[in-house]
Structures are given as structure tokens and as C-alpha cells.
């Protein structure tokens, strides 16, 4: 019973992180058809900005929005000055289907090495605003801390804000329209280019929040968030790459499978589980759980 509770709680906390990372990837993919591998690098750089803020002000609650802002700005820059011109230049030939993936790998490399030059590869300690020790109930200590609760609640709040934004505001509507039918949206007066940049910026902010949430309690280095990209991407693909609900569900599925296998089977399976889960789901549904409807063509 104890094991079951622990596994579910850890799964929930990990799942929340994966879900937000997956959402960041989904936001970019639905608006510009780009799988953004630089997301991990962008989140990492934003987290370093947050770290700079937190070491100077000693206040986590200033660092979180500061990092989100930095993430949004960085993403907007990458979209405007690299991805948009690239879409026009590499539109034909053998490279066309993979050009954006390859460019984002390049950006990831630049961010990695740039950050290592600025902040060195030495691990930085990022203080958590709340306790990172397991919660004690009766005589048993659960591997679930206040920090995990902070993660879960923040992710839920961020997701709700996104859901409200997309469903209830006119800018959110333009974003969905531009992702769904760029040409027709343009005719209807949506400034598709600008709306796409906003999609990237939102995604950058989401990635930055992931970094600032997950880093306290462990260390920050130029490579510390890379593995989250893999998990986030797997979660996004499970969910179908297009749907925010899919991202949330995919994150949860992955988080739970990881925590249950590591508690009940072996923690040595951490890197193998995502592959197995992904493959099983893709064999049944090659375009993910929420993907592949005929409503849209890629």
C-alpha cells in the first residue's frame, strides 16, 4: 500500500513535469510544424537566467517569471531569425522534410556550448523555496515533498491558464486558426507570422517554467535538462503531438510508467521504459492517442 501511494505520487509529480515539457513541444509543433529539439537548451538558458536572479535577489518568486520571460524572448528570437527564414529557404529537395529538425539540433548545440562558456559546466545549486525532504505521515516517510506539491500545483495552474487563453480569448482563437489553416486565417485577417511567433514565445515560457520547477533539489548544468526533452518529446508523441490534452495525458502515462517500474521492478530501467511505452503506443496508434484524426493533414 505504501509502495502504491509512493509510486502514484512520484508518478504524478514527474508526469506533471513531462506534461508541461510536452505542452511546450506541442505548442511549437502545432503552430509551425517544427519539432523543436532546442527546447531543452532554451529551457536550460532560461533556468540559468532564473538562477542569476535567485542568487542576486534570493527570491524564487521573482526568478520564476523572470525565467519565463527570458524563455519567451529567446524562443521568439529563434522563430523570427532562424525558423521563419528557414521555412522559405529549405522548402524543396531532400532536406525539406527534416530541415527544421536539423536546424533545431544546431540551435541546441549552440545553446549548450554557449552556456558552458558563460556559466562553465560546473553544477550550480538552485535553492528550492520549499522543503525538498519527503513528507512524513505517521512513522513512514513518503518520497514526496513540498517541492513536488509546488510542481504539481504550478503545472496545473499553468495548464489552466493556457486552456483559458486558447479557448476563451480572441488571440487564442487566432492561434488555433493559424495552426489549423494558415492560408484561410491569413485571408480572414489573422497575422499568421506574428501569431506563430507568439506560439513559440508561449512554448519558450512553458519550457522555462519546467526548468525552474525541476532544478531546485538537484543541480543545474548546461546538460541537466536534456533528458527532460527526451521524456517530454516521448510524452508529446504519445499524446499525438498536436493536442494539449494529449500532452497532459502523455506526460501522466509516462510519469506513472516510470515511477511504477522503478519502484516495483528496477530503477535501472529508467531509460528503457520511455522507448518501450512509446513503441507500444505507436504500434497501436501510429500518430499518438489524440493524433491522426482526419480533421487535419500534416
Amino acid at each position: 500500500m505504501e509502495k502504491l501511494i509512493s509510486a502514484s505520487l512520484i508518478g504524478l509529480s514527474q508526469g506533471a513535469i513531462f506534461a508541461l515539457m510536452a505542452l511546450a513541444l506541442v505548442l511549437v509543433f502545432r503552430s509551425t510544424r517544427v519539432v523543436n529539439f532546442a527546447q531543452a537548451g532554451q529551457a536550460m538558458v532560461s533556468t540559468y537566467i532564473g538562477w542569476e536572479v535567485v542568487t542576486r535577489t534570493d527570491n524564487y518568486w521573482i526568478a520564476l517569471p523572470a525565467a519565463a520571460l527570458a524563455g519567451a524572448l529567446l524562443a521568439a528570437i529563434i522563430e523570427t531569425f532562424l525558423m521563419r527564414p528557414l521555412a522559405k529557404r529549405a522548402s524543396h529537395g531532400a532536406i525539406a522534410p527534416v530541415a527544421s529538425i536539423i536546424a533545431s539540433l544546431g540551435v541546441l548545440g549552440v545553446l549548450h556550448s554557449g552556456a558552458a562558456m558563460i556559466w562553465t559546466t560546473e553544477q550550480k545549486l538552485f535553492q528550492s523555496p520549499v522543503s525538498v525532504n519527503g513528507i512524513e505521515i505517521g512513522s513512514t516517510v513518503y518520497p514526496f515533498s513540498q517541492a513536488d506539491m509546488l510542481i504539481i500545483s504550478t503545472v496545473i495552474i499553468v495548464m489552466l491558464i493556457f486552456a483559458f487563453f486558447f479557448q476563451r480569448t480572441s488571440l487564442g482563437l487566432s492561434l488555433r486558426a493559424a495552426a489549423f489553416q494558415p492560408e484561410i486565417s491569413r485571408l480572414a485577417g489573422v497575422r499568421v507570422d506574428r501569431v506563430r511567433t507568439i506560439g513559440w514565445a508561449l512554448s519558450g515560457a512553458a519550457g522555462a517554467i519546467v526548468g525552474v520547477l525541476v532544478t531546485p533539489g538537484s543541480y543545474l548544468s548546461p546538460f541537466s535538462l536534456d533528458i527532460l526533452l527526451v521524456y517530454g518529446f516521448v510524452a508529446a508523441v504519445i499524446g499525438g503531438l498536436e493536442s494539449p490534452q494529449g500532452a497532459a495525458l502523455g506526460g501522466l502515462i509516462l510519469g506513472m510508467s516510470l515511477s511504477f517500474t522503478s519502484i516495483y521492478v528496477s530503477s535501472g530501467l529508467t531509460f528503457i521504459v520511455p522507448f518501450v511505452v512509446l513503441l507500444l503506443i505507436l504500434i497501436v496508434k501510429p500518430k499518438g492517442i489524440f493524433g491522426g484524426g482526419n480533421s487535419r493533414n500534416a
Partner: protein
Amino acid sequence: MHSTHRRRLILFIIVGAVLFYFSSRVGILRLYQGSTVSMYVIAIGSIILLTGYSGQISLGNGAFMAIGAYVAVLSQLYLNLPFFLTFFVAVLGAALAGLVLGIAAARLTGPYLAGATLALAVALPSIANLFPALGGEQGLGYDSGNAPALFGEVARFKWLFWISSLAALITCLILQNILKSRYGRVWKSIRSNSVAAELTGVNAPRSKVLAFILSAGIAGLAGAVLTMSLGTVSPSAFPLSLSFALITGAVIAGISSLLPGSLVGAVVLVGMSQLVGTLTTRFEIGDVLAQNLKELIVSALLILAVVFTPNGPGEKIREMRDHRRHHSHGGHR
């Protein structure tokens, strides 16, 4: 034998003879770099076949290299195979893994395939830590043997260079023949329009799986060659960054150019280390900067290449020539 095949074969024999001649006239460092270049040529060739021709993207060819490497080592360790045979077994083992994943992957397109192969690249090296027989983090040793007695006393690095460059030459020859054959055209047709290709009677899923299997097998050979030149195999030899480096190498000189593309990419990847080393000592760059300079340059190069010469410099030059011709025609009229 087809006449173009024969011409190609003769050309490769000449190149081999030239390499053989030079192997006795250069130092250990150049021989070592030559082996590494050969390894990259093979590995980049596997990406060019898969991405440049069949239009599928794999972020996991580093994983197939790992499979090839471990199969080679295990077949030597437990079956006592002579080391030439371990290379064949490595190709078969990796190709078999490619078949398994390829069947699953045939239904996956673009980003979904990228996701599956990325997860594979992360998952696979960690398997070595699960089974004691695979040697864990330390890995296993591999005996690359010695040159046959008829060559006399051959220095180790020269021997390694011979083997790896021979492997690269044979791979390029076979790949070139495949890519210029009916299969190459079929893959290209699927890449540009799979519906149209199927209407002409092409079995698109089967052709894609075939490309995946071939690519995996070739990557397996690259893994075996890498293991041979390191003399050991361990999970740390196959990080995710290796898979990314292969893509970089394939893109720099044009993703559908096997020759000279894969060679240019391999030389850039290997040469960059030396260039950065030279720059570092010449300009006394600090350690922090120097350690990361190579990745910065390679990544920047990748971005610039994909933005300015998306389909390789060759294509770019052709395009500019066509453009000019078009203009001068317009002027005359």
C-alpha cells in the same frame, strides 16, 4: 557485370591503392584520424541512405552503431570468430535490430519516427548496465588482431587504418551501386510523393523498411569499426551526441550526396577537433572556452549549412548557374 559497375570498381581499387601507398608515409596521428574519418564515412553513409534517399529521419543511428559494436565484441568473446567475421555478424545483428524497429517504424512518419529513434538512442546504451555479460560501464575488450604475416611487421595504427579504410571503401562501393540502382530511384520517388509512387506499383512501406534495415546494418559496421579502433566497447562510446554528429556530418555537404558528401562531412567532424586544438594553443584561449569551442563551431556550421545551402553546396552552385543562364536568356530576347 554492368559497365558502370566495373568502372566504379576500378576507381575504388585505385583509391584503395593510393590510400595503401600513403599509409606508410604519414605519422600515427594522421593514421588514427584516417581511421576515424573512415568510421564516420560509413556512419554518415547510413544517414544519407536513410534520410537523403528514403526521406526518413533517424536520431538513433548511434544506437545501431552500439548494437553492431556489442555484437562484434560478443561474437569474438563467446564464439571465437576471427575478427573479419565479427564485422559481418555486426552488420547482420544491427540489420536485424533495424528490421524489428523498421517494421514498427514503417507506419511512423517524420516527427513520430524521430521520437521513436531518439528514445532508442537513449534507451540502448543503458541496457549494457543491466546485464553483467555486457560488461557494464567498463565495457568489454576487443582484440583487433594483427596484419597477416605476408605484410611483415605492421604497426598497430597502420593496421587499424587499413581495416577501417577498406571497410569504408567497400561500404561506399556497395552503397553507391544500391543508390544508383532501381532501389535508389524508388526511395527518391517515395520521398517526394509516396502516393504517386504507390500508384506506379511501388510498395512504399516495404521499401521504407528495407532502407531502414540497410541503414541500420551499415551503422552496425561503423560501430564495429569504432570498437576495433578503440580496442574496447562501452556505453559511453555511444552518447546521444554521436547520433547528432552523424546528422551534422550528413547535412554539411548535402544530405543526398554520398560521395563526396560523406567524406567531406567526416573530414569536417574530425578536422574540427584538430583545428580547435591549433586555435587554442595559438591564441592561448582559456580552458572553458576551448572545451566548448568545437561544439559551438560545429553547431553554428550546421545551422548555416541548413539555412544557406539546404541541399548541399553542389545543389546551390547548380541552382545559381541555372539562375544565371535563365537571366542571360531573358536579356537576349
